């Protein structure tokens, strides 16, 4: 699960790193991605794994549209306006999903990847394993893109100093929109993978978004590779606390870990700020 948390968090981290806006609608983006995967499966009989490009693309479009339609307008406004804009978007998306699709729970039955692997007596669910592998792959792709492509470098330049980047001829508005598109695509992939084994309903995003915020803060705001490590850490803390201490305490352990880290290093493990 850690890799998935990390992938959800990566999108959040990317957007924050770029323009210092926390997307409070991130959980709802995840929920929408899961619905895209669900409808691709129920209407077009497309397995969630095969529908991944579709979910990523759909969410990238949503991210792009969110930037141009909403974020661009509040970017220069006070911090509170930015918070309420994405928070309002979250409420709107969740209520919209309730209105359109009801509050019924849906699940994808018999996905392509089902079953389990036994590793030394410990069973690992195949969908989770595949989700982790694909999440890692998506991470690698993201990292390569950010580090080695011209657009990726332009994105990083914009993140470091938007005025200097603009002076260098980088279209910062386009970069911001691209950041939102890529960040949302990450959560799109995560949602598509999650839909293989998790139930889908309008409120599903909340719990995952909370863990994603923890992963982002733990890794350090804006540092995408560190988010991977933090996400995995959160996932491991959850499983080991559940197995060794008590399942009721597993999230307490996760948040304790988070508190310990921010007390010791407020900027997160690898944060720049």
């Amino acid at each position, binding site marked *: 699960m850690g890799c998935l948390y990390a992938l959800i968090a990566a999108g959040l981290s990317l957007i924050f790193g770029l323009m210092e806006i926390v997307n409070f609608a991130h959980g709802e983006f995840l929920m929408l991605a899961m619905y895209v995967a669900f409808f691709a499966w129920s209407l077009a009989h497309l397995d969630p794994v095969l529908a991944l490009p579709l979910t990523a693309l759909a969410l990238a479009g949503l991210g792009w549209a969110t930037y141009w339609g909403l974020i661009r307008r509040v970017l220069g406004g006070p911090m509170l306006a930015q918070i309420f804009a994405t928070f309002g978007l979250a409420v709107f998306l969740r209520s919209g999903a309730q209105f359109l699709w009801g509050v*019924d*729970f849906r699940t994808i039955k018999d996905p392509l990847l*089902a079953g389990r692997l036994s590793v030394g007596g410990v069973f690992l669910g195949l969908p*989770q394993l595949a989700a982790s592998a694909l999440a890692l792959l998506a991470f690698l792709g993201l990292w390569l893109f950010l580090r080695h492509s011209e657009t990726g470098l332009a994105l990083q330049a914009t993140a470091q100093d938007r005025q200097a980047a603009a002076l260098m001829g980088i279209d910062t508005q386009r970069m911001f929109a691209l950041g939102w598109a890529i960040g949302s695509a990450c959560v799109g992939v995560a949602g598509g993978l999650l839909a293989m*084994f998790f*139930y889908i309903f309008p409120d599903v995003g909340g719990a995952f978004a909370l863990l994603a915020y923890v992963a982002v803060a733990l890794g350090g705001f804006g540092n995408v590779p560190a988010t991977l490590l933090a996400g995995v850490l959160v996932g491991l803390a959850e499983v080991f606390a559940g197995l060794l201490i008590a*399942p*009721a305490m*597993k*999230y307490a352990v996760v948040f304790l870990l988070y508190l310990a880290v921010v007390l010791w290093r407020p900027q997160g493990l690898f944060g720049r700020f």
Partner: protein
Amino acid sequence: MRLVIALALALILAVPALAAAQPKDLVIGVVYPMSVPACALEIAAEIANGATDLPFPFYQRLKGMPGLKGARVRLIFSDHQGKPEIGQAEAERLITQEKVAALVCCWHSNVTATASQVAERHGVPFLNAESSSPGLTARGFQWFFRTSPHDGHFTQVMFEFFRDFQAKRGVKLKTLGLTYEDTTFGSDSGKVEKELAQKYGYDVILDLQYRARATSLQSEVQRLKAANPDVWMPTSYQTDAILFVRTSRELDYNPRMIMAQNSGHISSDFVKEMGKEAEGTLTRAPFSTDLIGKRPVATALNAIYAKRAGKDLYDFPARAFTGIMTLLDAINRAGSTAPDAVRRALVATNIPGDQLIMTWEGIKFDQTGQNTGVKGIILQMQGGKYHTVYPFDAATRDVIYPIPPWKDRK
């Protein structure tokens, strides 16, 4: 001209007087999660308003609310989102601003706990039709009434089932594994299960409280698999119930018998989405769809309900309907919406079993506000639907035991 003005003035003065002559609406606050099938409650209001007919003496008596001289029943719905603090705030708002005569609330035990405190403080009758936490009627409240059985009654039925099933089939059930979520519902259920297990001589080899609405239940299922009890007894709301089935399948956990504490395991979403994947799951219940045909009142109500809701009456709307009808009957007998009069009428409630859609002996409250006429049944998921399997004389199917392992299922 003066005449016109005088006439107009007379009219203005007369209108409120005319309005006052009409009986006032009977306003009832209904606080539920958004997913509540509201139409069972609406049908109840229509029966009292004479818009829908249920041809049985108890319901005929309520037609047009003669006790309140034909007042119209009006329900105000409010969503508590499963959160105790919202339930509490909504109860407060309905009582102080909407001036409701009574509250029907809340499904979730933890929300019922907070919302009923508000009603108790204001002295407003509070009818609870579903929450199964036993502690709710042990608080010494004066205004709290529960029509449904609590986990004590339900869990008792489970253990009676274990006893009779072992005698009937000649199998031995010795060890139990309990998993229960960490809100009031789960912890109270776990507590009662442990008490009864000890009383009847079973070994609880796994006692696991888990975080509700978890994002993953892998460690929980791994521990169940390692303990491998004779009976796994889960207490979950629907999100976790669905995830437990999914995770059990992924991790190849094959319980021989699952005895669930209703709620999530019987919700319509669980049945629809998990269906055959949850084959063999046993659950306690106060009501079962396959018993509808055996009870004339239930058959008649289901004919109305199914047309509106698009599905048959099931446990949750059945209990909500029974609860609100009990309240309407009391208000009708009280002949007033004055809280004291309604409370006295609720205390004097005596509805015979044959007038109910439930398989209960009737509705009669003890001094704690708990209905003493309750009776639970045991259902089992067979072929994607729940069927009654216990008491054996009311059963529509035989018990499947042991549950087929995942590898043998198609």
